[in-house]
């Protein structure tokens, strides 16, 4: 209407039109004289209004039916931005005007080739492609990657939490499940997972369907408790224990020599033997085994006579042995069997039994 006013100059004292035409003209004139200015104008005749300059209009209380917007659309609000699935009752999403937090009342669905970006870095995100891969990089795009801080965690206020990772849920093939870790620009790598693909095992020499924890570079793998390393495997495969950690086995600890597969030894060459120490051999009380290696029982059958039963059979009876009934006396064992042997001090001494309070027996088979 403002443009129209600049094009036509109306003189209320000039009569050039018919009565009907004059009447219409009067109507137009009255309308023009009573409309609001362009800046504050109110358009439309129904409820609501469109207010603003020609290039910037504000819609209040208006319903847009199937609008088509052909340029960049900017939606903004002075406070929160709410999205409803109906005429204003059912809120399905909103953006907090103060914090920018996005709140969804439904699922977030990402198409197969799309990603969720966590930062300015566009390299890594959560995405799905031919293989399910999940990676998270917090990066400012300029300097080093952000580190997780104590404020960055997954948590539940009550109850348990589990992180459930699954691969090959349809069990149609042989896919590995891997959690990959790396540091120092990728020069140090570790991995945990399940290597179920027999044709593409993660660990060389590994076993199909095994769960693994491994260093993937020439660096050690270490296990600890109480923030102290207790046990480790170095890059060469050597087992290492710290000074206070013992190697304990409730079962048998075996090293099987490939050249003698029917026998098991701690070490075939170095230690093929047995030893035992007991107390109260002839003192007041029955014999109690204090320390032993490769001995399953000590059986007192008569005065000064003991049958020592070995846990693991000797490779032969050609071992040498000794019996010390006291700290200052020792006898060599002259006859022995591979699985058990008898020590008889009666046959070794002239008269009475040599029943000393402490008994020590050791045998060894030279390699």
């Amino acid at each position, binding site marked *: 209407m403002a443009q129209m006013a600049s094009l036509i100059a109306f003189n209320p004292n000039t009569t050039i039109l018919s009565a009907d035409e004059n009447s219409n003209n009067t109507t137009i004139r009255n309308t023009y004289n009573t409309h609001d200015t362009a800046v504050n104008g109110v358009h439309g005749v129904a409820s609501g209004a469109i207010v603003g300059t020609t290039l910037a209009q504000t819609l209040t209380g208006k319903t847009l039916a199937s609008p088509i917007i052909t340029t960049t659309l900017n939606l903004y609000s002075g406070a929160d931005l709410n999205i409803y699935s109906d005429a204003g009752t059912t809120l399905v999403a909103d953006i907090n005007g103060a914090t920018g937090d996005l709140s969804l009342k439904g699922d977030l669905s990402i198409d197969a080739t799309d990603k969720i970006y966590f930062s300015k870095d566009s390299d890594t995100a959560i995405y799905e492609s031919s293989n399910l891969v999940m990676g998270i990089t917090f990066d400012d795009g300029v300097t080093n990657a952000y580190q997780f801080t104590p404020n960055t965690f997954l948590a539940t206020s009550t109850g348990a939490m589990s992180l459930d990772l699954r691969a090959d849920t349809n069990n149609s093939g042989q896919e590995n499940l891997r959690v990959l870790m790396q540091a120092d620009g990728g020069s140090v790598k570790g991995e945990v997972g399940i290597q179920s693909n027999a044709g593409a095992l993660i660990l060389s020499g590994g076993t199909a369907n095994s769960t693994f924890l491994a260093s993937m570079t020439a660096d050690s793998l270490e296990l600890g408790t109480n923030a102290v390393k207790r046990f480790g495997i170095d890059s060469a495969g050597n087992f290492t224990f710290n000074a206070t950690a013992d190697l304990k086995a409730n079962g048998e600890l075996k090293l099987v020599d490939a050249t003698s597969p029917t026998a098991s030894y701690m070490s075939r060459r170095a230690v093929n033997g047995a030893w035992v120490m007991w107390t109260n051999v002839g*003192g007041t*009380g*029955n014999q109690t*085994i204090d320390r032993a290696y490769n001995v*399953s*029982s000590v059986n007192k059958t008569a*005065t000064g006579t003991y049958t020592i039963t070995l846990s693991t059979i000797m490779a032969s009876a050609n071992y040498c042995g000794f019996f010390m009934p006291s700290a200052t006396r020792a006898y060599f064992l002259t006859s022995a069997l591979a699985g*058990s042997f008898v020590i008889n001090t009666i046959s070794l001494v002239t008269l009475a039994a040599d*029943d000393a309070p402490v008994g020590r027996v050791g045998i060894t088979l030279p390699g």
Partner: protein
Amino acid sequence: MKIRIFKKNDGRTIYSSFYWDLKKEDETDLEFMNRMTINHGNFPDEFKSLPFIDVDENEVPTSDSDSEQYHEQIYFKGDCKKENLKVDKDWNTLVMPDFLIKKKTVERLSKEIDEINDPSILIKKSRELKEIERKEAGTGNEKFWLEKALEGLDKKIASGEADKPVVRQKITELKNK
């Protein structure tokens, strides 16, 4: 600490001790002791068929050779039960082991030699003592020592001591085997 006591055919015992550090966490004492003995391939077969009891070591008689209480004096009087475990302190029921017969014989002969005045008898007895001392105990000379045990019993009766009929009969039976 538990031990397993086997009852030998003559009533005497085998005391079996174990290194309990080898016991597994999920294993009972019974299972452990079975694994170490009757279920163990290296445990002597002649022991495996013997009856046994499992007891705390402090609840059963002990042997102490320094106090002349020997393992051979512990025996089951009847069935293999803890309450039947006895000690034959005076050797009224059990036959002494060879090394003890030898010891007693040597002591007796030595005492006799000390009291001999006749030189010819002294020489004879001294030779006998030397022979006894040279004879080994427990190595195939069982009948020789049983003979000496009977001689010892006879000497006791001659000196006015009471006989030990149960032991005498056992010695006789063993001699005649």
